């Protein structure tokens, strides 16, 4: 039995301008709905809904963002008088590796039979444009729908690694700052600050390569077999540079479109929009983010 990707979808801020600044929730909702539609599924069929996005509207910390998405898309909202099945939703935070981490958790619960259909949704949006400092991720949401298939391999291996010696290279936090612009308090406000060091791009490549090669060695994978590389790290140009380091042809890289090259948690779903998953037989997913944390997964058609 394998965990397969039934569908994926994205929603961008530029395409969803019903409001001047659509929030992360609107993007997540749109991506989730589009994903279900592509798979000819309904929200009621979902057993599991995981949000992996980090930069929420209002930087909401409670409830789980996933529960808001669940309500918005109408996935088994309340216990009915008749028998049925519900949806369990929660958030996973693992930086830019969150979407693959969520897929790993869904994979486990599909394999155990705890769930039959799961979706991982991720979106990020500057919660306070003009106030936040250093926020440079494009507003985009992504969703990946997963189910078990006895006839296909799907995700066959995952590998996760952390490199805490580089933790200082990518930091983001909300903290109180005295601010002449005042805010409601009149003297300051809580402000999101994102700081990414110049050296992060080089270090994240090294960490990602080490982890990908470990996965390949453990799975006896010849990297020459990889016919689709989905590599993301919130850094423009990461996928091509990473492919060169691995010796994978640039033609086999799932590209991020202009304007979304520094997409954060939704990036793997954005890369899948290239539509090349259906033709690929050996897919290597690699995501890297703050920590430095790296997640790698092997997917076989």
């Amino acid at each position: 039995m394998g965990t397969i990707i039934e569908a994926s979808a994205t929603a961008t801020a530029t395409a969803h301008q019903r409001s001047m600044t659509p929030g992360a929730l609107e993007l997540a909702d749109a991506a989730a709905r589009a994903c279900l539609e592509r798979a000819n599924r309904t929200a009621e069929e979902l057993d599991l809904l995981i949000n992996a996005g980090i930069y929420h509207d209002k930087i909401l910390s409670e409830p789980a963002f996933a529960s808001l998405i669940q309500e918005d898309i109408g996935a088994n909202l309340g216990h009915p008088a008749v028998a049925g099945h519900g949806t369990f939703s929660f958030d996973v935070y693992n930086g830019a590796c969150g979407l693959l981490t969520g897929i790993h958790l869904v994979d486990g619960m599909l394999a155990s039979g705890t769930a039959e259909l799961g979706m991982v949704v991720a979106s990020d949006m500057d919660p306070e444009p003009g106030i936040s400092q250093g926020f440079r991720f494009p507003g985009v949401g992504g969703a990946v729908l997963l189910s078990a298939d006895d006839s296909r391999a799907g995700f066959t291996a995952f590998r996760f690694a952390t490199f805490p010696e580089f933790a200082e290279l990518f930091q983001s936090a909300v903290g109180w700052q005295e601010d002449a612009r005042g805010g409601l308090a009149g003297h300051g406000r809580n402000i999101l600050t994102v700081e990414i060091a110049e050296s992060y791009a080089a270090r994240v490549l090294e960490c990602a390569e080490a982890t990908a090669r470990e996965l390949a060695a453990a799975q006896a994978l010849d990297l020459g077999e990889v016919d689709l590389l989905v590599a993301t790290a919130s850094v423009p140009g990461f996928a091509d540079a990473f492919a060169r380091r691995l010796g994978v042809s640039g033609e086999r890289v799932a590209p991020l479109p202009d304007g979304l090259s520094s997409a954060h948690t939704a990036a793997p779903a954005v890369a899948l929009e290239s539509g090349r998953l259906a033709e690929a037989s050996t897919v290597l997913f690699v995501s890297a983010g703050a920590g430095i944390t790296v997640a790698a997964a092997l997917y076989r058609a």
Partner: protein
Amino acid sequence: METSGGRSVNGSEHWMAMEGGTDASPRDGGYTSRFVGIGASLPERRLSSEELMASTEHQTGIDLERLTGVRERRIAGEGEDSYTLALGAARDALAYADCAAEDLDVLIVSSISHYVGGLRWQLDPPLSVSLKEALGARHAISFDISNACAGMVTGVFILNDMIRQGRIRRGMVVSGEYISQLGVNAAREVRTVMDEQLASLTLGDAGAAAILERAPEGAPGIEVAGFTTLAEHSRLCLAFPAKIGPGVSMYSDARTIHDVGIEDTVPMLREALDQAGLEFDEIDYLIPHQTSTRAIQKGSEEFYARMGHAPKHVVVTVNEFGNTSSTTHFVAMWKYLREGRFAKDDRVMLLAIASGLEVGIVIFKVDQLVERYGHDH
């Protein structure tokens, strides 16, 4: 009986995502997971409800202790925050579990609050990276989850699934909640007993950790774990960075959460107990989420009336620790284990009812845990 997802081919259905029990999925591997260490980290400083209410900016007339039963709560001191409380609890749990951090296959951080270095809310990297490093859990897959006050129980659900399948042997879920500052913010704004920030005045700081591992064949452990999200109530409690000062503010419709929580939990209790092949009175200790003594008492009475049975004991610790959000169940377990209040053959139910609306239930036998805390009765 073959089961797939929440549905089985014989027609029985689960509303909850369910692990274990009488018609468990044949794909789940057949292993049993069990708790082998519960740790906690409580700040030394205490703040009474009387002291907190004396600090309110407005004359509220609220007798918080009489209203909620919260006599006092622990308050993080200098140098303490979500991270340090989580780290202290994780080390405590490892000591009771008698295992090394490098024996952990998975490390899950489930705090709602992510304060590192005072009131600095860290978003990237996840707290699990630095916690893994500090503990020396070098083989562990690590990540953070967030599921409101059900976060730690959600972590147990995830680890239980992995252990039952044989994917991992041992994992830890840990939370550090530095949330007393919500009470500080609420004290500046609360005016009446109907205020949406009233619940923030009941909060206290604590770290808690739980280690689960694969049980030896035939040994008892977690019998059933179930979870669901009734998202029609997802917006009844919202927390985000405060507008009036450092930290967070939380706005909740506590009365409605309580009412729908009780109403919607009853069928889930039935489902989980049916799955375990148990009646409610076969539960020796019910550990509910700790919001207020009145809410626990009222909720328990409703459960007894609807279920027709009552568990033998209901654990209440909110009076001395306040509501410590995601850590409450495990702070309570830790206290009872240390005080020798569980017997080896006791059966415990953890009941999480949290913003979302999340309903999570874990039923397990205490077994060897009592011996790890110096008790064998």
